[in-house]
């Protein structure tokens, strides 16, 4: 019985972790290419949840709705990059440019959260689906259907991103810009366009993850705060900027959250996550998959 309970917790953790993994990939992609920690990532996720909610009001199944958030949010991300982030130059000093971009995303996050509170009201909303309350039974193990579908779709989308990055010319150009922007630009790659592409894809992924999350999680303007830190943890865990790392990091966060419940009360669920976060930072700041640059 104890084993079954343990497996149940692991399964629940992994299902939740799959969606964390998808949202973290977006953050990792943006950091990997632009070296900017996007503080507004959680807010775009929240907007993705709302868009899926509105789709659902119009009769679109939220699993499809989550997919349909991708095109508009890709465009939104691209516009935000072109209109805001790309305009911060830092006076030609890359480090100062990245610092300024980071603070800019923090400002953006404040604006989006609070504007959403004003416009959409703080009232939590939810999407009712038949599968949200159903479960697949694998012997004694119960898998919530909404979470299972969300997990499967997150996996498919993440695989799609991986194929895009490794098997297409554009994906290779993107990785080249991440590794060495200067050398990439000498090869005729438009690095600024690549940054826009990365930001667009990163935002689209987190919006889709938000759509999947909306099938079983309440939707409210302040929801970003609960998830942005989890995304940071997943990305740091995997190694800042590593896409497979962020994916594994997301799964680990889900697991840690779930297993923390075995030993700590529900309110302290996230302390387990933060302890893992700090431990990884102290013991292996380059993360599980990260490379460490030599500084001397």
């Amino acid at each position: 019985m104890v084993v079954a309970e343990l497996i149940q917790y692991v399964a629940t953790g992994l299902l939740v972790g799959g969606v964390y993994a998808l949202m973290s990939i977006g953050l990792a992609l943006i950091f990997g290419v632009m070296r900017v920690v996007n503080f507004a990532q959680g807010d775009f996720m929240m907007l993705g949840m709302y868009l899926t909610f509105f789709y659902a009001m119009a009769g679109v199944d939220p699993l499809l709705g989550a997919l349909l958030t991708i095109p508009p949010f890709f465009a939104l991300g691209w516009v935000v990059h072109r209109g805001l982030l790309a305009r911060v130059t830092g006076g030609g000093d890359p480090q100062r440019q990245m610092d300024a971009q980071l603070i800019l995303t923090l400002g953006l996050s404040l604006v989006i959260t609070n504007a959403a509170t004003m416009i959409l009201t703080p009232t939590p909303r939810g999407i009712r689906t038949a599968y949200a309350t159903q479960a697949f039974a694998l012997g004694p193990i119960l898998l919530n259907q909404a979470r299972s579908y969300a997990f499967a779709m997150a996996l498919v989308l993440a695989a799609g991103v991986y194929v895009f990055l490794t098997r297409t010319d554009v994906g290779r150009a993107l990785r080249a810009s991440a590794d060495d922007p200067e050398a990439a630009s000498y090869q005729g790659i438009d690095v600024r366009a690549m940054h826009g592409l990365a930001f667009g894809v990163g935002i689209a992924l987190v919006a889709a993850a938000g759509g999947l999350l909306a099938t079983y999680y309440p939707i409210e303007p302040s929801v970003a705060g609960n998830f942005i830190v989890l995304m940071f943890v997943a990305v740091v865990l995997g190694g800042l900027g590593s896409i497979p790392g962020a994916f594994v990091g997301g799964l680990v966060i889900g697991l840690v959250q779930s297993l923390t419940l075995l030993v700590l009360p529900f309110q302290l669920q996230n302390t387990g996550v933060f302890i893992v976060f700090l431990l990884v930072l102290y013991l292996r700041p380059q993360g599980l998959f990260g490379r460490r640059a030599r500084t001397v």
Partner: protein
Amino acid sequence: MASRARGWLAIAAIVAAGLVLALLLQERYHHRVLTLVFLWAAMGLAWNIISGYAGQISFGHQVFFGIGAYVTVLLVVKTGLTPWLGMLVAIAVAVLAAILIGVPTFRLAGIYFGLATLAYPLIFRIVMDWLGYQEVAIPMIRDRPGWFMQFSEPRAFDLLALGVLAATLVLSRAIETSRLGYRLRAVKENEQAAEAMGVDAFRAKMAAYVLSAAPAAVVGAVYIHAILFIVTPDAVFGLLVISQTLVVSLVGGIGTLWGPLIGAAVMVPVSEVLDSTLGDRLPGIQGVVYGAALMLIMLYAPEGLYWRVHEVLRARGARGAGATEPIVAPATAPAVVSTPSGTVLLEVRDVWKAFIGLQALSEVSFDVREHEILGVIGPNGAGKTTLFNILNGFLIPDRGSVRFRGAEVTGLRPSALCRRGVGRTFQVVRTFPRLSVLENVMVGAFVGERTVSRARTVALGALAQVGLTQRADALPGGLTTLELRLMELARCLATAPQLALLDEPLAGLSTDGVDVMIGMIRRVRDGGVTVVIIEHTMQALLRLADRLVVLDQGRRLAEGAPGDVTRNPAVIEAYLGKRWLARMAAPTC
């Protein structure tokens, strides 16, 4: 000296202006805004100490604000202790927390440090919820309101907040004008160069962190009593606290005490007015304004208002300055000319160092004798800079030992080695770009001097020694390569080294520049400093060095007088290849 007095006067003027405002204002609401301006300015100043001066951006500084709030309120509730004394306890707890957080977290650099600091207030938030302190109200005490910081007169809170602000301003000013302030700016600009100039970066950061935690705790304590009256985890550990801190600091400009002051004076009234007029209909308006302000400032004046104005004024002032005279080595000779003695100053024994897949140094041994100029030569990739990085403590050898003046120094931090008398310069000059030439050199001078005025005297002496006195007030960005190399040499000399490690000081110099530099290095030696110099061009070193050590592929190939070394076939082969060796052997026509 005049500018120092002006700084203190300006603080006095600001406090006086605050007093006048506090006395003039009539409406209760205006007093509230004034109190908020003072408190957020003080909070911004506290954050500025660690993130502005020391450059360690903290996204979790509200942890100390929250500690200040919770400690004072819980002490009143549980023990009836007055918040006036409670604040002292809060400071002690905040300082302890800063040490406990700082010791592990300062192992991380840059964005990693910032991300780690995010976690601490979140942990406190969760734990406070779990402990059942979701809402702790200050109990009303009617008989002795003043003793419990429960004034009915709003001016009292103005004055209290102004007092906190004044104390934080004085603390900031004291840091800015102290040895610690110079060291923090050096660490911020270039941590490696600062370490090499005797600055223990970890200790400097810890000092800044502790000094910035204490005022943040006081602000938190006062904020609860003046504004909130009820402490909740979200209100004191939440993101809005750090957002407001960042906004006032960044809008005003970081790295100066005027920045947060300006930022608070602009941003707090704007957001309060908007909140009071539109807050009922649009509950998130304050957040939108703060967010929009952050975005606008990053887009149009990323350095903040203070620095933008400063830059404009500076540009106007600089227009009058004319061209400077070319540098020539001063003709005066030092009184005592030192010559190489037999005493061994530095002993390198069997040093090995490998990087992943590359054996950079293998069984390297040699001695440096007092008052000599020892040249270390070798082709690119021979391991010369790796050797220097071991000699000044940037790297720890895998095997072997380095002894300086008879004492084992292997594994000491660069700053510790510098304080013992090992100075160095870098192959690619490492400046503190936003410090003037004089201030760059002063960072080195602080190794031996505690006060700013003494350090300035020493630094001016070092600048005179290399002939850079005229450029003392310039920024490194405007210097020529020769001037930069001379500045770095002066910075190294200001540490009063016994041994100076010069990493390719001739690289990138014109023929004239090389002559100036060679003359300068000779004078340094004649002044009593032992010099080890890396070069890959043999010619220059033949004119300069008393002895040569030749490295090739991480091994010591030869050692001895320049004439002997250059005739050594192994050396010729390493430098010019086998074919050249064959041609040398053949009779010339």
